[in-house]
């Protein structure tokens, strides 16, 4: 199916693969060479998605298509990464820092880890213990893909590798900080997370870059949860205002496991996150929470998919958006209940606040239900600030601007529920829109 388009971007990455694949991690491993070459072959067929694809109906990637990005890796530091680190670091976390797509050991900091926990660079892990990774890559190869995820499979150069033996629980979250420092750069981070039975971990996947650079991030995170495992994944997207950010997070859940996802999107000119989890065994739980805040001409897209494949799964999903200026948000939330997934309980909601007449929201919550003994509900709303609530606050002497701020903040704040880590919570609170004005 050659229904994608071919422009400078596609030609650029194909040429780059031909030139550079010998230098990518694991080039000496036959199975990984095959995974990469299969992926680039599929990408050559697929191309980038167009708005004729139902999943990309509201998000055009033509602006990416028109660009050719560089990928030179240059270890010399220009000081940007250090300054970004000072701004984005979070206290009380293990930290893995990736600069322009490559692991930066000098900026990373790992405290003592319990036995049975491996946390580090994926490129290093491929070099040291390729046998432990093969099945994950091959399984990934079979997952549904679009042009961007296949491109990541072909071109990833580094990312995080987190492997927890059964029963290993990390007290401190792992902060994965991806910093881009260069204009015109494309990076393809890939993270692999495997939590054994009853293991537990909190991840903070954090993307940041300068506002004056135009660059492209194509990230893929894959999380495999063993029986009874608990993984919480928080994504903090603070890319530069001229950047392109396309990311996929795929989780696969075993029996009794719990997967929590928080997605906070603030940055990017064009940003899209696909977050999918498959409740592949009985009694799983999934909770997906998101907040997107857009202004200017930002385009922010979230596609989520909760796939109930087995009985007695529970899922809760709440996504909220605040749009100002000429920003546009897209939300597509898919909940599938397969024929065997009896006694599923799935609730989903998407609420949007439009603050300007030029802002736009396209939302599509969808339920696909093939079992009968289920409780499923979804809701979506689009609206503006409530005039009665504004009036109430103003009648108590709060000026219009402050009243609006308060209401916007109140709308957004409940997406922080469930974030327990103090530093992360404080950081998110500082990023929320609205809020009380400084005391005079």
């Amino acid at each position, binding site marked *: 199916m050659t229904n994608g388009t071919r422009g400078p971007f596609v030609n650029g990455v194909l040429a780059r693969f031909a030139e550079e694949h010998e230098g990518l991690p694991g080039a000496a491993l036959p199975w990984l060479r095959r995974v990469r070459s299969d992926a680039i072959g599929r990408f050559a067929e697929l191309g980038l998605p167009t708005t004729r694809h*139902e999943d990309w109906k*509201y998000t055009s990637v033509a602006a990416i298509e028109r660009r050719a990005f560089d990928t030179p890796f240059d270890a010399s530091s220009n000081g940007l990464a250090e300054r970004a680190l000072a701004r984005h670091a979070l206290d009380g976390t293990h930290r893995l820092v990736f600069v322009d797509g490559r692991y930066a050991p000098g900026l990373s900091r790992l405290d003592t880890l319990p036995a049975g926990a491996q946390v580090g660079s994926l490129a290093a892990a491929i070099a040291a213990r390729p046998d432990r990774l093969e099945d994950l890559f091959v399984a990934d190869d079979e997952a549904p893909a679009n042009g961007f995820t296949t491109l990541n499979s072909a071109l990833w150069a580094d990312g995080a590798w987190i492997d927890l033996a059964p029963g290993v629980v990390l007290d401190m979250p792992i902060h994965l900080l991806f910093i881009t420092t260069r204009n015109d750069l494309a990076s393809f981070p890939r993270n692999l997370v495997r939590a054994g039975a009853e293991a537990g971990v909190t991840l903070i996947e954090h993307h940041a870059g300068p506002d004056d650079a135009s660059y492209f991030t194509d990230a893929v995170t894959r999380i495999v949860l063993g029986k009874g495992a608990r993984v919480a994944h928080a994504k903090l997207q603070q890319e530069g205002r001229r950047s392109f950010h396309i990311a996929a997070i795929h989780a696969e859940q075993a029996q009794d496991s719990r997967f929590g996802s928080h997605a906070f999107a603030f940055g990017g000119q064009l940003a899209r996150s696909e977050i999918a989890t498959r409740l592949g065994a009985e009694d799983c739980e999934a909770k997906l929470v998101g907040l997107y805040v857009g202004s200017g001409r930002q385009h922010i897209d979230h596609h989520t998919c909760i796939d109930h494949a087995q009985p007695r799964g529970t899922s809760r999903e709440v996504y909220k958006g605040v749009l100002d200026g000429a920003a546009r948000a897209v939300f597509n939330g898919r909940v599938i209940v397969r*024929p065997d997934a*009896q006694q599923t309980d799935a609730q989903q909601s998407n609420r*949007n606040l*439009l*603050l*300007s*007449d030029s*802002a*736009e*929201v*396209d*939302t*599509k*919550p*969808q*339920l*696909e*239900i*093939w*079992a*009968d*003994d*289920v*409780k*499923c*509900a*979804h*809701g*979506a*709303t*689009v*609206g*503006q600030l409530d005039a009665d609530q504004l009036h109430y606050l103003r009648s108590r002497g709060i000026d219009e601007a402050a009243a609006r701020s308060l209401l916007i903040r109140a709308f957004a704040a409940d997406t922080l529920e469930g974030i327990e880590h103090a530093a992360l919570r404080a950081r998110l609170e500082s990023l929320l829109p609205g809020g009380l004005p400084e005391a005079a």
Partner: protein
Amino acid sequence: MGNQAVQLDELISQDYRHGFYTPMEVDALPHGLSEDVIRMISAKKKEPEFMLEWRLKAFRHWLTMTEPHWATVRHPPIDYQDIVYYSAPRSQQDGPQSLADVDPELLRTYEKLGVPLHERELLAGVAVDAVFDSVSVATTFKAKLGELGIIFCSFSEAVQNHPDLVRQYLGSVVPYTDNFFATLNSAVFSDGSFCYIPPGVRCPMELSTYFRINAKNTGQFERTLIIADRGAYVSYLEGCTAPMRDENQLHAAVVELIALEGAQIKYSTVQNWYPGDKDGKGGIYNFVTKRGDCREANSKISWTQVETGSAITWKYPSVILQGDNSVGEFHSVALTNHYQQADTGTKMIHLGRNTRSTILSKGISAGHGSNAYRGLVKVAKSAVGARNYTQCDSLLLGDRCAAHTFPYIEVKNASARVEHEASTSRIGEDQLFYCQSRGISAEDAVSLIVSGFCKEVFKQLPMEFAVEAQKLLGVSLEGAIG
């Protein structure tokens, strides 16, 4: 539980009551589609030149289109050359001048269907236009309506007698380029109903079209055009049945509604085409384009549909809210049993200021039935103060049925308020137990719960239709206890 399942099966396997076939001498074109066939249809109907040109434009456009496949329905490919595009009872060739001229065999057929074409009969409050295969066979109460200036006749008559109105409004809501099936309809439509309500007139009775597919291998392509002029009001009903056959038949109709300033149109459908047998064999493919245009201020269009028939239903009655303060409504009950599939919903396109729309959709899936709600609520930048409320609920009976919801919401105006809610559940064990513990049999309990589930939609139907719809639902669902 096991016992209930047996009862359920018995109930579900109730026969389709309108499945008989009336042997008639017919005047039909050979099957297949070409410009010649279209010229012949147009010639048979003695149409003016502009109609033929319009049909041919549509046909040429259709040749460039491909059949859409995005709906959540599955069916074997349709061979468009294997369909008879025109079939008329021979006795009707010259068109009946009055009811006395109508072939008694036809009258008996409608009698059997419970649609009396005699003007004195029970349903005396309803004027009926009956369409049999490709042609309209009778229109009742014409004279009485004529006194008020209301034009209610078959489409063919309208083309002859009111060509200016037809020319002005035909295709103005659903253009001939609209979609694959609407374009096909534009090329080959054979008849249908036409209705014009003059300014300030409130139509004193329900107008009704009754569609019947009788002949084998024919497709039915009718077209309905309703215009409510300024301040007019009309309530319109549509009913459909077909004989039982093993092969699938295509029904691709187009309905266009136009409401001018302050006008109101209420359009109700009880669709009971043959759904196929319990193994999913046969049945009608009901691929219909229905759209209303609130063209001027303060107008209102309301769609109510009860969809219990057809092997596959694929339709989205829509409203374009152009006029300021105009109102669109969509009330729907869709039931799928056995192997029936329905992909239905609505589109509300808000363009004018302070436009409002309400969507209420109730889907019931039983057996292997699959039911999808697919809807679009679009608020354009110009639609200041637009308001939409959508509720879609699905009820599941049986563990092999499916219910899907695909609501599209596109909002480009900050003053808009759009709300969508949907829920899916099966009939609660506790509800059933409660009823049964009070001596209500399992079937009656299911029927009670289902009618409660559909009540809000049924109360939108005119009384005669509401009774029929309730009965229909009862028959289609009998025994559907999961």
